[in-house]
């Protein structure tokens, strides 16, 4: 059947016009999407520069080392030393991460190497719910369960058995302590650490396990001698990730840690972490000069430490997820 040449040309031209307009839409949208996509990078820069700018009044007034290692916190006298807050944050984080690491790694290994499909299906909702519970609810639980537990049981026991050792001596028997904050944090970061370690174990090729099992190693020996050396950097990255989450946790820690500006010497001493300092005081500090800048400086210190932690951990983890 002979085609009408004129009509055919018109149709082709129409198709061409449609194609061009579709291309144009695509190009246009691509540009818009590109701008949106680089926003996250810009956002980090904006937050950093914004905090730096707003805390500049205090950074330019005092030497940085005085701020970091100064022990006095008397805003009304113009003395801003973050030392006890930084140490408080580190204590709570170290205790939390230290408590979380052994069970988390064991659970992750179990789920990745031993557990059958049914156990995994059972464990997933547990971890999902732990991850979904809001920080303030962890705080309420800490207040109702952990603080009394530390006050009435762990504290007295520790004092009786290990009281000669300063770390375990009880000077402030209220229960509001580094240990209470650490216990709450440990449970909060559990789902994150387990998920990351589990993922890492899954990236190890099955052949490695088979080779080791074939020459007569037990499963634990395979994990210990073959898998662990492989995944060690990843596990450390997972721990760093958990630590950075714990480092910035605000409301749950704030509710159980006592909030006394002092350098803690024992697990049972109260502490006052940086996020709690910001949350408790920011917003109603306008009358004291530099107070605002000091608190934003605290936020800046927090941000810089967490940025470093996160960038390190992410770069290490990238190597596994290829």
């Amino acid at each position: 059947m002979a085609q009408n040449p004129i009509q055919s040309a018109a149709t082709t031209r129409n198709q061409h016009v449609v194609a061009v307009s579709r291309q144009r839409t695509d190009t246009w949208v691509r540009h818009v999407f590109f701008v949106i996509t680089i926003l996250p990078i810009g956002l980090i820069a904006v937050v950093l520069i914004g905090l730096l700018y707003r805390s500049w009044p205090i950074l330019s007034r005092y030497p940085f080392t005085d701020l970091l290692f100064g022990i006095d916190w008397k805003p009304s006298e113009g003395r801003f030393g973050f030392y006890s807050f930084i140490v408080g944050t580190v204590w709570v984080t170290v205790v939390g991460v230290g408590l979380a690491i052994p069970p988390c790694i064991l659970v992750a290994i179990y789920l990745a190497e031993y557990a059958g499909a049914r156990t995994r299906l059972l464990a997933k909702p547990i971890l999902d719910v732990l991850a979904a519970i809001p920080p303030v609810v962890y705080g309420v639980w800490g207040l109702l369960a952990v603080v009394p537990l530390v006050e009435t049981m762990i504290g007295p026991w520790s004092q009786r058995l290990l009281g000669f050792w300063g770390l375990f001596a009880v000077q402030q028997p209220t229960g509001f302590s580094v240990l209470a904050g650490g216990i709450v944090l440990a449970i909060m970061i559990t789902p994150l650490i387990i998920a990351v370690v589990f993922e890492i174990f899954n990236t190890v090729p099955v052949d490695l396990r088979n080779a080791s099992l074939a020459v007569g190693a037990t499963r634990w020996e395979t994990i210990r001698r073959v898998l662990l050396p492989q995944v060690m950097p990843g596990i450390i990255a997972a721990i760093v990730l958990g630590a950075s989450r714990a480092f910035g946790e605000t409301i749950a820690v704030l509710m159980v840690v006592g909030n006394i500006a002092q350098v803690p010497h024992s697990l049972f001493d109260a502490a006052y972490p940086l996020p709690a300092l910001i949350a408790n005081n920011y917003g109603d500090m306008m009358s004291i000069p530099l107070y605002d800048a000091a608190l934003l400086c605290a936020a800046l210190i927090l941000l810089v430490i967490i940025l470093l932690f996160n960038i390190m951990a992410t770069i290490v983890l990238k190597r596994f997820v290829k």
Partner: protein
Amino acid sequence: MRRQPWNRRHLIERIMQIAMIGSLVIVALCLGAILWTIIVRGLPSLTWQMISQAPKGGFYMGKAGGVLNAILGSLYLATGATALAIVFALPIALYLQTYLATSGWAQLVRLALDVLWGIPSIVYGAFGFTLMIVLGVRASLLAGIIVLALVELPIMTRAMDEVIRRLPRDLAQAALALGSTKLEVALRVIIPQTLPGIVTAVLLAFGRGIGDAAAVLFTAGYTDRIPTSLMRPTASLPLAVFFQLGTPYPEVRERGYASALILTIIVLVVSFGSRWLAARLQRYTVK
């Protein structure tokens, strides 16, 4: 076959297995303990009045009223923040996967998102508040929504990025081979195919947003009134819990526990609801 005698190696194997199962049980028990505490302490004060009324005069001294202002405030905050975050998260996730794939730019953006995810919400809150001072804006629902959207954005984007990455390439390639532009592939193939995962990502971010206290502490303010305008301050459930626990009156603290229970229920409903919804939507994808 002769059974091998027990030796040290097998003993260690057994001990480690017991330790692992024990750890799993401990984690499960912790979850049980948390839910048990919240339910047992929250339930007695959880009355209809709690969820149907805003605080009356003297509420924080133990008089009548409820936390409807905080429930609605939290729902508004989280809904607004989630909607705002979608507007940015979806284009970013699509752009990362369809246009950039695994190039250097994509790596950099993913690193940025991971880093943003790690920034504590108190830092976003402090940053938001200092920005508000500079701009001369008061604490309001809108400010709370914007800061909460910052908290939700990386969570949502990375989750979406991950589901889109898992999508098999062949469907998209078939559409490209037929002459679709990348945008058409994104809108007509990728989004419908990954809809269950996208919904999960959105609800995950919503759950995170509604439970966050530190981001809205300075930016959304607090009020006993039910929010009516974007420009007015609003209450939120996490802060309601926090403030009620801070009072010296036992009745008020009891109601704080009840508020915590309400928040937990909302979060769990969202969490399990998202799984149910994703399973339903899975039917409409091409296998």
